[in-house]
């Protein structure tokens, strides 16, 4: 099989507050023999906030990012749910509306950027791995199965909703019953935890203007995971991770109960099963400690 190559759109968070996400993604890709080419020219996706202020600007910047992946000709892979949704929504809108595409392309042309053509797929690393490599191939590379570890998958909104966008570009999960991360946990030898809020919202996008809302929503997730005996939560999104890991003490305050639990980035969990060391996976950067890992 030819080597799998992707154009990696890192997003901002993986280069700043969650360095462990980029580190573990690169380490896991290497272990799985996937080549990642970083899109260093890319800009921020606007994180679903820039479009509230200036929709056209957000659209144009995202189109430019995709153009750089088109130049390479590889699937554009994201490692943040919100980057994924913003980029794939841009793609959908441009692919479906030729007038809008022309408007955006005229602007790109004015600055000397090649036109957006819509020739590459945009996928989260989770689904790229599952689609192109497959669960069985990943399973075969497991050297340290996650035996006896109870893992609560937390999917995050922007990787599963809205389903029509996700079906066109991404995993196409049923947002009311997502299964990919649970299946991955099982393939890695772990035990998946069933709990109600695995597909709900962590509240990240109102964290600044309404921390109470954000903390209450996150509390539902952490308490659901803990009350169903999870040893750790695992998420494919660095923004969910910032909430559940960095803000954990504020969530506990709002909930009025102990909610301490470590939070994996998805590639950290995969990497562990592939035999990578905690250091290689950047676990020292996570705020909540993983007491069950020696």
């Amino acid at each position, binding site marked *: 099989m030819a080597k799998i190559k992707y154009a990696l759109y890192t997003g901002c968070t993986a280069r700043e507050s969650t*360095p462990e996400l980029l580190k573990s993604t690169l380490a896991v890709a290497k272990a799985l023999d996937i080549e990642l080419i970083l899109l260093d020219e890319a800009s*921020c996706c606007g994180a679903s906030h820039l479009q509230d202020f200036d929709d056209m600007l957000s659209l144009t910047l995202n189109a430019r990012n995709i153009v750089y992946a088109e130049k390479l000709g590889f699937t554009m892979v994201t490692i943040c749910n919100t980057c994924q949704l913003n980029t794939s929504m841009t793609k959908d809108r441009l692919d479906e509306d030729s007038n809008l595409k022309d408007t955006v392309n005229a602007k790109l042309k004015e600055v000397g950027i090649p036109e957006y053509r819509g020739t590459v797929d945009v996928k989260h690393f989770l689904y790229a791995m599952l689609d192109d490599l497959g669960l069985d191939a990943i399973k075969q590379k497991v050297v340290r199965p996650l035996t006896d570890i109870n893992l609560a998958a937390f999917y995050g909104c922007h990787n599963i909703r809205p389903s029509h966008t996700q079906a066109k570009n991404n995993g196409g999960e049923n947002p009311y019953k997502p299964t990919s991360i649970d299946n991955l946990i099982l393939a890695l030898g772990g035990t998946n935890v069933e709990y109600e809020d695995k597909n709900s919202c962590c509240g990240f996008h109102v964290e600044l203007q309404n921390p109470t809302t954000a903390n209450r929503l996150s509390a539902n997730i952490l308490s659901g995971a803990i009350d169903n005996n999870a040893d750790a939560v695992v998420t494919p999104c660095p923004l969910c991770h910032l909430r559940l890991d960095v803000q954990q003490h504020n969530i506990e305050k709002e909930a009025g109960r102990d909610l301490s639990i470590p939070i994996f980035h998805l590639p950290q969990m995969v990497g562990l099963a592939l035999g990578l060391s905690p250091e290689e996976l950047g676990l020292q950067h996570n705020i909540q400690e993983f007491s069950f890992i020696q």
Partner: protein
Amino acid sequence: MKNKELTFKVFRFNSDTDYLPHYDTFVMKVTKDEVVLDILNRIKWEHDGTFTYRRSCRHGICGSCAIKVNNKPTLACKDNVFELVKVFGEELILDPQDKSRAYKDMVIDKKPFWDKYKKVKAYVIKDIQETPDFENIVSPATNEEIDEADYCIQCGNCYYACPSVSVNEDYLGPSALTLAFRFNADSRDEGKQERLKIVDELGGGIWDCVKCNECAEACPKELNPIAKITKLHNQVFEEGLAKNNIAVRHSVGFKTSIKKIGLLDEGELVRFSEGNCGVLKHIPEAIAMFKKGKLTLPWNMPESKNLDEIQSLIHIASTAKFKNI
């Protein structure tokens, strides 16, 4: 296609007599054409005449039959049972839209839901003569602006799926905001400014949307309420009504940051949004992050390659203004 024997676990509660709700189980043979409303009818007609639920039109128009099936917002007269079985298996759980507001079985008290329509003035605001001598004609082109928001049947599926509503009773929610957008876009209406001031309030308005897309998923008419909420955000800036508050600065701050480094300077965005005093409450997190090497210091701040390209693009593609940003 054969019949299927399915198990329905049904939420039962009578607020006049019960302290706590319970679930009744009904096992039924179901055919491929039956919708959830057929099941509700059969429970009442064949099993328990006291079972209570709302329905009227049976045609997806009145919006009264909305319930949840395995937590999925459902329009009972529209959603096919076998389709639900494909996702959830042969045991289906039928719940009212909001268990905490149940009167009797599937029937809930929807007062807060309806009150929010009143709050956003979901009607055409205009001084009109009682005996006008001309028609108020809406052209097909201006009707396009409404973006199908007038197809809303006020079923509440989006509202009762909204996590922000579930933890904050002040949040106007996707249903009322969709209609606020609908009347703002109506060419006969003169209440846009008034309505925008209402929906722009912090704590209950558009800035409290957590952007989860639950409403987009829940709407049986595929109206994409969150897209309407984004348009309301845009209108607040277009009409020059945006206040200099934390939420507005948070959205505008992305542009400032991208212009500077192509990426988001996360720490600076928090400072810019919160202001120099407000930012102090984030010190505990900042210290914890610093200790774990999660804080990017100014001299290590990443920057996009070909930044000049991004800056020129911002220059020519910007369409909105807030102060001098």
